[in-house]
């Protein structure tokens, strides 16, 4: 008996030792682990698909990415638990936390729903969405929805709204949109904090993948999902909405079909393709990079959030911009506090990676947009944003 135990333990130890020895030959990355710095990223699940593609194609460092939600991304970056955090929302007290908001890509958010029998793009706007999520509108054939969709036969079933239960930049974008659309949004100013806890009876889901699987599993449900997960959602039978760009749509309806915009599936091409996403003539000088949604058009009832604290960019003009478009931010710690064990020695590697991200990661040499940006449905950064990023990087101290 004792012999059996001894043999088992010896086998275990030998097995682990052998594994350790053959590990470098099996894993091509580990042999360079002493020379290749190792970077870690966490945060926005919307940004995660792009981050993994970047990590797979960036050879100067080993990057580990995780999709934990924008709030965790912001927070882990501030606490120096990771090298950089990804967030869909701008961090407002960046200077006091010694971090920089570094826009790295342009993404968008879709509104997906699961209504058996309806495969068209329903017209929904901020007021209607606010009413759906706070329980004022309960069924799909509500007059407000019907008025915006006169040619669609809507079922009488109850709407099941899905919201993110983790701290989410997608929640921040969605709540920014509805908050700016209507004064009757009961859950306060836009934030990454979930509003499912506040007696709202909205079903919770974790991460964009949780939203997709939740909406897919629940008939007659609706949820806000990032563009990088749109392909999976569409493959799962969901349909996305045409979102209204006019914030002052009255409750009685009277909507103009042209005011409802479907997001284009961004093909590679010229900057002119950006026209549909409201990126022309963004006034960065006045509003800086602190934008939550890159909205365009005239906003009669627009609520301007704190300047520099995130908000719309009302001077952006273009015909029919899709409203739910945002900048993806990487939060980087500027002067790491002494005693940190993650970022300190790798700040140089982080800076190198970020420089790669806004050039090769966004713009492949000789073309406008790189494949990776394309694959996840994002748009590459505009020249102004890239210039702003270069300024940030120049000011980062690497000592």
């Amino acid at each position, binding site marked *: 008996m004792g012999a059996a135990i001894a043999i088992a333990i010896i086998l275990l130890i030998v097995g682990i030792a052998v594994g350790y020895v053959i590990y470098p030959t099996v894993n091509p990355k580990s042999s360079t682990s002493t020379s290749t710095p190792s970077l870690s990223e966490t945060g926005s699940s919307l940004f995660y698909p792009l981050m993994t593609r970047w990590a797979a194609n960036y050879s100067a460092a080993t990057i580990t990415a995780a999709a934990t939600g924008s709030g965790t991304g*912001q*927070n882990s970056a501030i*606490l120096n638990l990771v090298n950089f955090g990804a967030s869909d929302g701008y961090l407002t007290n960046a200077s006091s936390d010694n971090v920089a908001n570094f826009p790295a890509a342009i993404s968008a958010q879709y509104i997906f729903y699961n209504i058996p029998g309806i495969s068209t793009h329903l017209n929904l706007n901020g007021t209607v969405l606010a009413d759906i999520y706070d329980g004022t509108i309960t069924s799909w054939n509500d007059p407000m929805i019907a008025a915006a969709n006169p040619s669609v036969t809507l079922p009488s079933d109850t709407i099941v709204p899905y919201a993110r239960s983790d701290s989410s930049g997608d929640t921040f974008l969605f709540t920014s949109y509805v908050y700016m659309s209507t004064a009757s949004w009961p859950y306060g100013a836009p934030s990454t904090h979930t509003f499912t806890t506040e007696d709202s009876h909205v*079903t*919770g*889901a974790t991460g964009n993948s949780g939203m997709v699987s939740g909406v897919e*599993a629940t008939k007659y449900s609706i949820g806000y999902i990032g563009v990088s997960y749109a392909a999976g959602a569409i493959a799962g039978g969901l349909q996305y909405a045409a979102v209204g760009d006019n914030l002052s749509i009255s409750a009685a309806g009277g909507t103009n079909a042209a005011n409802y915009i479907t997001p284009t599936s961004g093909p590679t091409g010229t900057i002119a393709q950006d026209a549909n996403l409201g990126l022309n003539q963004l006034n960065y000088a006045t509003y800086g990079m602190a934008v939550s949604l890159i909205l365009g058009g005239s906003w009669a009832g627009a609520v301007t959030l704190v300047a520099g604290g995130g908000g719309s960019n009302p001077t952006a003009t273009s015909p029919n911009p899709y409203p739910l478009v945002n900048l993806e931010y990487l939060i980087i710690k500027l002067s790491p506090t002494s005693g940190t064990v993650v970022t300190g020695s790798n700040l140089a590697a982080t800076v190198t990676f970020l420089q790669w991200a806004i050039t090769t990661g966004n713009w492949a040499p000789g073309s406008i947009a790189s494949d990776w940006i394309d694959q996840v449905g994002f748009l590459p950064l505009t020249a102004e944003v890239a210039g702003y990023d270069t300024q940030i990087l120049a000011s980062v101290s690497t000592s």
Partner: protein
Amino acid sequence: MSSDPPTRETGAPEPLPSPSSATSNPPPRRSAGALVGKIIPFLPALIPAAVIIAIAWTLVGATGFYNFGLGFFLPGSPSNPWGVGVEIVGSFLTAVPALLFSMLLGLGIAIASTTYLPGFLSKILDPFVDLLAGIPSVVYGIWAYLVLAPLLGTVINPWAVMHLSFIPGFAASINPPSPTTAGTGLPLAIIVLTLMALPITTLLIRDALRSIPKDLWESGLALGATRWEVMRKVGLRHGSRGIFSAVFLGFGRAIGETVAIAMVIGGGGGLPVNVYDTTNTMAAYMFGTLDSALVEPIIGKNLAELALVLLAITLAVNIAGRRLVSHLYAQEVPGL
């Protein structure tokens, strides 16, 4: 009790003499080294207590001594965003039915195993039930999400709505919509918790029933009672200590269960409007909200206070359970 490998159990110290060092130690030597030698061995024994104190202290510090007032215990709402009443109620709403079901099932299985099954069958089937105890909760969660949730959402819940809606609470609700086809919510959480508490209750009750002296059993049968009657009149009373322990232990396990519940409860914000609704429990809410907590520090204080409530409930259930059991059974049950 048998010397089976210990699982998560509580119980009072057995009132039997245990090996004590007082009579067998060599006479103490009066030197500094011997004094140190007496103190140092005590220290490792204090580690569990030290960890528990450290946990409580850390949580108290994390609350920042912020005062949330009585609204803390009320459901959260836009006007009372720090209310966690829903989570506290939700924990009990899931744990109490789960405990009830697992006690009934555990009783049934334990009685079947000790009384009605032939020995060889018991020996084969009992380890199966004990195996359930080892399955990690995240694996329960993924299985429940994959298999049970669609079953509940598409088959069982609609059936219940169609046939049982005369019972208060079993009718469907429109606003908020419940049940949904996703199947997550209270019923799924209760089923999962029952399965997780079942092996503990079964083990404790089974051991309690097995410890009945054989002559009690046989004399009952010899007097013409059926197996059920002997079990009911003799066995359950004799084993009631184990049954009591099973209640407290199972409840402690059920109310602290985190990951599996987080995966299946649906994370909705309000008090359940009917039996199918989604809600939240203390542990699941704490697990899911920590990332928000650091973004806004006040949420962190809120969570730490909720953690203290959960810690207090767990400690109270465990300590009270042991006290109650040892108090009720301080004297041996008089035998025949």
